[in-house]
C-alpha cells in the first residue's frame, strides 16, 4: 500500500465496501425470498388454487374428528388425517411422531407440499399450544369461511363443519352468544 493514499481514495474504499455489503445482502435476501417464502393456505384456498408440487406451504385448519388413521410402512409410522376449514377438507399424510398436543377436532398447521392426487404430504406437523389456543392463521381462515366467529364462544365441533351450512353456523353463534351472555 502506497503512502500517498489520499483522503478521497480512502473514502472511496469505504463507500465501495459499504455498497458491496449492501449489494450482496440485497441479492441474497431477494434470492432467498423468491424460493423460500412459505405461504399459509386454508384447505379451501388449496382446492381453489392448487400450488405446484414443488412449493412448500403451510396448511392450516382443524383436524376432522374421526379421520385420524395410524399405520406403519415397514417400521416408519404414518399418520393420515383430514384438515378442514369448513369448506373443504384435504387428506394429509405425515411420516413421523405427531406432536403431544395433536388432537382430533383441534387446530393444526401442517408444513409440506401438495401431491398430484390432491393429498398433502406433510414434513412437519405443528400443534404446539394448549387446547383452547388456535393458531391465528387458522382462526382467520375459519372466520373468513363464515363458519365461526370467535366473538361467539368456542369453535364448533370440527366433525360437523363439512356438512354445516353458513346459516346453521350463524344460528349456532347466536345460540352460544345467548347462552354465554
Amino acid at each position, binding site marked *: *500500500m502506497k*503512502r500517498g*493514499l489520499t*483522503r478521497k481514495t*480512502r*473514502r472511496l*474504499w*469505504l463507500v465501495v*465496501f*459499504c455498497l*458491496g*455489503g*449492501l449489494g*450482496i*445482502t440485497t441479492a*441474497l*435476501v431477494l*434470492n*432467498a*425470498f423468491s*424460493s*423460500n*417464502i*412459505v*405461504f*399459509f393456505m386454508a384447505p379451501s384456498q388449496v382446492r381453489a388454487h392448487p400450488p405446484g408440487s414443488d412449493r412448500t406451504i*403451510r396448511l392450516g385448519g382443524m383436524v376432522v374428528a374421526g379421520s385420524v388413521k*395410524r399405520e*406403519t410402512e415397514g*417400521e*416408519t*409410522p404414518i399418520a393420515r388425517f383430514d384438515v378442514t376449514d369448513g369448506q373443504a377438507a384435504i387428506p394429509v399424510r405425515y*411420516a*413421523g*411422531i*405427531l406432536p*403431544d*398436543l395433536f388432537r382430533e377436532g383441534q387446530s393444526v398447521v401442517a408444513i409440506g407440499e401438495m401431491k398430484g392426487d390432491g393429498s398433502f404430504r406433510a414434513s412437519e406437523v405443528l400443534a404446539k399450544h*394448549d*387446547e383452547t389456543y388456535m393458531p*391465528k*392463521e387458522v*382462526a*382467520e381462515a375459519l372466520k373468513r369461511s363464515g363458519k365461526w366467529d370467535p366473538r361467539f364462544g368456542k369453535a364448533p365441533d370440527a366433525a360437523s363443519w363439512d356438512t354445516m351450512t353458513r346459516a346453521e353456523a350463524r344460528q349456532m353463534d347466536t345460540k352460544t352468544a345467548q347462552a354465554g351472555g
Partner: protein
Amino acid sequence: MFGPEPGHFALALACVLALLQFVVPLWGAHRGNARLVALAPGLAFAQCLALAASFLCLVISAVRDDFSVQNVAANSAAAKPLLYKITGVWGNHEGSILLWALILGICGAAVASFGRGLPAILRGRVLAILGGVSCGFQLFCLWTSDPFDRVWPAPMDGQGMNPLLQDPGLAFHPPILYTGYVGFAVPFAFAIAALIEGRVDAAWGRWVRPWAVAAWCFLTCGIALGSWWSYYVLGWGGYWFWDPVENASLIPWLTGTALVHSAIVVEKREGLKIWTVLLAIATFSFSLSGTFLVRSGILNSVHAFAQDPARGVFILALLAVVIGGSLMLFAWRAPSLVTGGLFAPLSREGALVLNNILLCSICAVVVTGTMYPPFMQLLAGRTISVGKPFFDAATIPLTVLLLAFMAFGTMLPWKRARLGAVLPRLLVPAIAAVIATVCAIWLLSGLLPILCAIGAVWVIAASLMDLAQRVSLFRVPLSASLTRARALPRSAFGAAIAHIGAGITILGLCGMSQAQHAIVEVPVGHTERLAGYDWTLENVRAMPGPNYQATVATIVVRHNDRIITVLHPSRRDFSSQNQMTTEVAIRTNLISDLYAVVGEHHGSGPDQTYILRLHYNPLAPWMWLGGLVMAIGGGLSLSDRRLRVGAPRRARTSSGVLAS
C-alpha cells in the same frame, strides 16, 4: 413484613427514586450544579435496593405458596419443587418484567460503583439515562402488569406452571439472557450522555467497551443456553428454529458484536465515533423491541394486542419514547461530534470496518426475515412465513465472508499494513485450511457446510497462529515465550479465544448439518440400525414422579456388538394440567450426541409398539461449547489490566490526539 403489599410499595418507591435519578442529575448538569449531579450514584443505589426488596417480596410470596397473590396462583402450585417455585417467579410476564427492572437497577448500581473514575458530569448523565429507562419500565410494571395483585377468594392451590418450564436449563436462562439485553442499556446510556455532551473521544471508547463486552458475554451465554434448552427439552432434535423469539435475541447479539469491535476503533484511533454511538443506540433498541414486541405478541398476533390493549399501547409508547427520542437526539447532535479521520482499507481499523459491515448485513437479513411476515400480514393480508431455508440461504454466505476476513483482522497492524508482511503469517492457517478442505469434502455434503467448516478451521488456526507469533513460540526458548505470554495484554488472549469460540460454534453447526435421524414404530426387543449404531428397545416401564406419571423406555445402543450406552428417554404425563412432555435421553462424548425420544404407543399386550425418534448428531455439543468459549474470551478481555486499573484520563482536547 415481606408480603405482597410491601413489595408493591417498594416497587413504587423504586419508581419514584428512578424518576429522581432521571431528572435531578440532568437538571444539575444543565445548570452546572455539581451537588445535584453528585446525587446520582446514591439514588442509583437506593433504587437498586428498593427493587431488590420488591423482588424478594415476590419470591417469598411464591415460596410461601401465598395463592392470594394472583401471579403466584396462576403460575405456581403447592406440589411444585422449591427450586421451580423460585425460578417460576420469572417464568411469567409480570415476574419477568420485574426481573428486567431489577437487572436494570443492578446495572445502574454497578455503573455508580465501578464508574468512580468517570468525570462526575458524564457519570451523572449516564445514571440519569439509566434512571429514565428504569422509571419507564417500573411504570409499565405498576400500571399494566402488577405482579403483586391479590385475588379474592384465594384459591386452595395454584394452577401450576407449564411443565415444559420445569427444567433447570430454562430456570436460569431468562436471568442470563436478560442481563445480556439489559446490559446494553449501559452503552446506550453512555451514547446518549455523549450526545448530550457533544463529545466522543478515545476515553469514552475505553469506558464504554467493558460494559458492552460484559453485556455481550451474558447475551452470548443466554443465547447458547436457550438453544441448548430447546435441543434437549423440546425433543425435536433441532437447536435453532429461527422463530421470532430466537431472532429477537440474535439481532442485538449481532449489532452488539459489531459494537464491541467498533468501540475498539474509537478507543485506539478515534475513528467510527458517530457509527459507534449509533450502534450503541441500535443494540439497546433491538434488545428492547425484541423482548417486548415479540414476547408481548404484538407483532405476531393482533389477538394478544386486543386482549390487553393497555399493555400493548404502553409498550408501544415506551418504545417510541426511548427509541424515537434517542434517534432524534442522534439526528440533532451527531453532526456536532468531531469526526475522526478516514483510514486505509488494509489496516486493523479497515478490517474492523469490514467486520461491522458484514455483521450489520447479517443483522439486516435477520431483521428482514423476522419483520417481513408480520408486515405482509398487516399490509397485504397474506399470511406467509419464512423459515430455516430462507435464513440459511441468506446468512450463511455472509458468514463465510465474515470468517474469511476474521482471520486477517487481528494480524493487521493499526493505521497501515503491508500485504507482504501479513501473508507469510497466514501460511500455517492456509495449510490448515487446505487440510480442512480435504477433510470437509470427504466428511460433509453440501457446498455451504463445507465452506463454513473451512472458514472455521481457518479462523481457529489463524487465531492460534497469531498468539503463537506474539509470544514467539518455538523461535525463542519456551521459558522466554512464557514470559512474553505473561506480559501480553489479556485482551489479546481474549480476542483470540473469542474468535476460536466462534470457529468452534461454526464447526458444530457444520457437524449438525450432517445429522441423521430415524423415526420408527417398533415392538419391545426390536433393534434399529442408524449411523453405524444398533439401537435396541429393551423395555418400557411406568414410573411415578412428584407431579407426573412417567413412561420410561430403555434403549441399549451397541456399536460392533459392544454396548456403548443405555438411554432412558421418557414421557411425562402431567395429569393436573392435562399435558404431556417428552424427556429426551442424550449421550454425548463431545464428538457426537446419541439422542433418543420415545413417542406414543399403539396396540396393547404383546403387540404393543412404540414410536421412537433416534438421532445421531455429530459435533452437536460444540455449538454451545463455542458460545461458552466466546464468553470466556470476552471475560478474559474484561479482566485486562488496562480496563481495570487506572481509569483513563480524558484528553484535554478531543481533536488531534491519537492514542496509539
